[in-house]
């Protein structure tokens, strides 16, 4: 690991100038924290946090067949997605397992703009290169960085720079001039807070990062707090909470299965997924509130009330917002009802836990009121 040559994002020097503690993550040298995970977590929940997520993969899928080809491997309905919107979806293998989770949207009239996870991007891009046919074309946007601003003051901060951003609602996606350059902007993120993800040209990343940071409401936030924020928001982390063996039904991500696509059964792995929807999966992702003892982290066993091991924790840790330990993991569906008493086993000690609703902390996405 220490001999691994880590890639850097265009913001690497900016992180070091801010005194960040850097770690290897997804093959990149990334800031895990600046002043401390707890303080950064709380700042994001109360003000606005700025995140460098440039290690994630960005691409466009264009051409007359772009949508129909993209839909072969995801269960979301992108044909009816309106221009200016984006949608969360899942890249599926032939057995219905999740190769990656992603955001794909229509920020302009030029196919799909897609953001995928850092650790999977090479595999995802190779998958599309090998499997997209007809006139669908993959273009990897390696010349772009990705900056996220998240928190209850994020919108005020950004609207001060560009008033049109006030018009965007949760999951809106736009291509517009911001800070004098061509950007892709979506009102989304992975913290449960309101905010934006902004794709900017690499050459302008540091200038834009520093410009946004000049606002006293904004602090830079590392990957440590990003992880505890997304855990509180009940959002799965690929490679941990979901992976190529997990189906969307097991992963409690059935909201990502569009009605029309289910009816047409027209995506990779549809046989397994539709069968699990009809008959129930053998395991399902649940949220656990750990009532005592140490944090239950990835790999900790989950037991029933009698101590029989029934599953494993896939991510967990202390919740700074709630002041107690929380976790996600997989159990057979008969143990998944809210309020079910379970145990988590940490270093040989069983601690009481209870199945609770996701998200752990209420999300604050900026949704437009229904007309």
């Amino acid at each position: 690991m220490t001999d691994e040559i880590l890639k850097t994002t265009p913001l690497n020097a900016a992180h070091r100038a801010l005194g960040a503690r850097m770690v290897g993550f997804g093959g990149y040298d990334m800031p895990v924290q600046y002043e401390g995970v707890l303080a950064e977590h709380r700042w994001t929940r109360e003000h606005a946090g700025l995140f460098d997520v440039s290690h994630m993969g960005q691409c466009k899928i264009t051409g007359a067949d772009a949508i129909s080809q993209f839909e072969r491997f995801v269960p979301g309905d992108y044909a009816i997605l309106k221009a200016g919107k984006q949608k969360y979806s899942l890249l599926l293998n032939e057995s219905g397992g999740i190769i990656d989770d992603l955001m794909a949207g229509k920020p302009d009239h030029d196919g799909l703009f897609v953001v995928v996870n850092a650790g999977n991007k090479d595999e995802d891009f190779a998958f599309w290169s090998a499997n997209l046919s007809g006139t669908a074309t993959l273009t990897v946007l390696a010349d772009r960085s990705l900056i996220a601003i998240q928190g209850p003051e994020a919108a005020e901060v950004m609207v001060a720079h560009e008033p049109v951003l006030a018009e965007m609602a949760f999951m809106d996606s736009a291509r517009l001039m911001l800070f004098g350059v061509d950007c892709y902007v979506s009102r989304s993120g992975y913290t449960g807070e309101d905010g934006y993800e902004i794709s900017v040209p690499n050459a302008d990343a540091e200038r834009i990062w520093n410009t946004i940071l000049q606002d006293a409401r904004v602090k830079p936030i590392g990957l440590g707090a990003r992880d505890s924020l997304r855990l509180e928001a009940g959002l799965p982390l690929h490679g941990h909470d979901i992976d190529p063996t997990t189906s969307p039904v097991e992963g409690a991500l059935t909201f990502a299965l569009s009605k029309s696509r289910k009816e047409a059964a027209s995506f990779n792995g549809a046989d397994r997924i539709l069968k699990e929807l009809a008959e129930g999966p053998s395991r399902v992702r649940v949220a656990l509130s750990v009532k005592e003892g140490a944090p239950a982290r990835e790999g900790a066993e989950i037991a029933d009330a009698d101590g029989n091991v029934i599953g494993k924790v896939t991510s967990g840790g202390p919740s700074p917002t709630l002041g107690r330990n929380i976790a996600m993991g997989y159990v057979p569906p008969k143990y998944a009802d809210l309020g079910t008493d379970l145990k988590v086993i940490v270093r040989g000690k069983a601690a009481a836990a209870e199945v609770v609703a996701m998200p752990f902390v209420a999300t604050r996405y900026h949704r437009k009121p229904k007309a």
Partner: protein
Amino acid sequence: MKFTKDHEWVSLDGDIATVGISKHAAEALGDVVFVEVPEVGKTVSKGDSFAVVESVKAASDVYAPVSGEVVEANDALGTAPETVNADPVGEGWFARIKVSDASALDALMDQAAYDEYLTTL
């Protein structure tokens, strides 16, 4: 006060050794959110994992720098684990061990040697 290469400190008063983790270790861990201290009466051997300290991100073992019997544990860390960050070589102590062989401390680093050791990491 003496230090180990694993960043524990030990301070001897008679045959009672008070043990904690160094300022360097507390800073490297980041925010400490949970500490598991040993049970009183437990016999530990030098090098045993005898306590666990957890930061937001990870759990780390704390190794006994000396052999002996645990005679007191800092249970206050159960409700205030952040004390380890605030005062690692004071109120953030983990346990007191009645040492079976005080000469074992001779093999550990003094402050100057530990500071020198930190520059090599």
